[in-house]
């Protein structure tokens, strides 16, 4: 039953076929980013935020922190606004789902490597 050479025709076919991988950091064309990818957290609509802290409470990774609104921020009802620490974020999207006013989103920008933890705080 067992014999040699079952894979040879496949090998010959692959000599002429297109490359399966993309030379990613140099070439970005050809990366398949689907619609609805869960990646970088974003505070999309600050005007609608009430500072209710639901997102902080549901976050399984304790990545969301509520800070006092800075002068340049849009002021919320309770005076607090969320920030996200990307080093702890697991991109589960529970905050987006739990937010009653649709303030938060997860964007599809997936390049999240930084040199310092301070750069990983999303305001």
């Amino acid at each position, binding site marked *: 039953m*067992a*014999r040699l050479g079952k*894979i040879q025709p*496949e090998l010959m076919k692959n000599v002429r076929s297109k490359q*399966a991988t993309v030379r990613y950091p140099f070439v970005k064309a050809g990366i*398949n980013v*689907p619609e609805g990818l869960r990646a970088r957290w974003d505070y999309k609509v600050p005007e609608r935020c009430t500072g209710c802290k639901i997102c902080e409470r*549901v976050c*399984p990774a304790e990545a969301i922190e509520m800070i006092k609104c800075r002068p340049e921020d849009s002021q919320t009802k309770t005076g607090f606004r969320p920030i996200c620490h990307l080093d702890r974020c697991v991109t589960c*999207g529970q905050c987006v789902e739990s937010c009653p006013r649709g303030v938060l989103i997860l964007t599809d920008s997936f390049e999240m490597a930084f040199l310092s933890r301070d750069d990983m705080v999303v305001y």
Partner: protein
Amino acid sequence: MTSAGKRIVIPPRVTIPIGPQHPALKEPGMFKLTVEGEHIVDAEVNIGYNHRSIEKISENNTHLQNLYLASRICGICSATHNGNYAQAVEFAAEVEIPERAKFIRTLIWELDRIHSHILWLGVAFHEVGFDTAFMLSWRDREIVMDMLENISGNRIHHDMSTIGGVRRNISDAQKEQMLKGFDKLEERVVFYRDVAIHEKTFWNRIDGVGMLEPPIAKKTSAVGPTGRGSGLKVDVRFNDPVQAYIPMIDTGDFEMVLSDRGDVAGRSVVRVLEVIEAINMCRWLLNNMPDGPIRARVRPRIQPNEVLARHEAPRGELIHYLITNGTNKPDRWKVRAPTYNNWTSMAHCLRGDYLADAPIILAAIDPCYSCTDRVVIVDGNGETIRLVSLDNLRIESNKWHKEHPRRE
């Protein structure tokens, strides 16, 4: 003739420790193989180097947060842990989830099985030194990975199940795309099945290696493809169906894949044929998916209850045991991952085989170290780590429970 020519040399018994940190192992595990020459005469398996105290963390988290924690027990079968925890909480709350949610959850489970088995096949090819097929099979695994990413938004941690249903719906365009993908995938998997069975370089390395006879498989309670490769009829999908498996199995179109070979070849054949079966199951699920809502509302506080949720993960039967206490946090959550059952059978498989076959025998149960590690006691003051035997653990746990009675 001198007597020196007739002398029989008995090789000394040598015990080779492999691990916990070893270049050939991707995860920390310790194997002590006693060899006589090239034959393995005894094997000892030690685990417990990857303890993350997930069960303890879960007691301070809400059920909703635990879903994501459960999903991170294992990277390869994240959907099974996530879905099974959701199922356990639903059992405890005694709520019925919508039909469409059941179908989508089952679909994710089956897609997870397809990608896990193709991944295993690639690893098996790699372990016997057949790297061409390893790379080809992993290339074609991308088809199913893309499907999962497309539906759930993440390649590995799908997190599709939530308490009361699923988080995302499947559109008609996605359905058409997936059906097209399955055609391509099936063609490729049939090719890999033929490669696994007919290619001499692979088949001769796995034929008759790592024998696990059915009585011993039963005695060591092997589950999943390890058990089914030895002819044991253990498959929760068929024995105790849940979710959309109930209508699917009732159609009678699907059969449990069994092999009576009992060696690594048997386990490989079971896995490859299961992929084809899983593709057919996914097609059936997509074509018969009912319309309707995908999520039922469940109150965050779950009534006091004690439940056992079972599910057939890619590696075998997965059990989540959950005690709820009327709050939104679990009182106790116990995970019994399938690899835990298969460890004991592996020590038996190793005995009597060649040392060179040890990697493929170790890989044949598809071990997942992170799933398994539960009992290692770390003493912060004394700075010691020790593994605990079952008897000692029982004594210690009885003592602990006496000192900490359960809150009423």
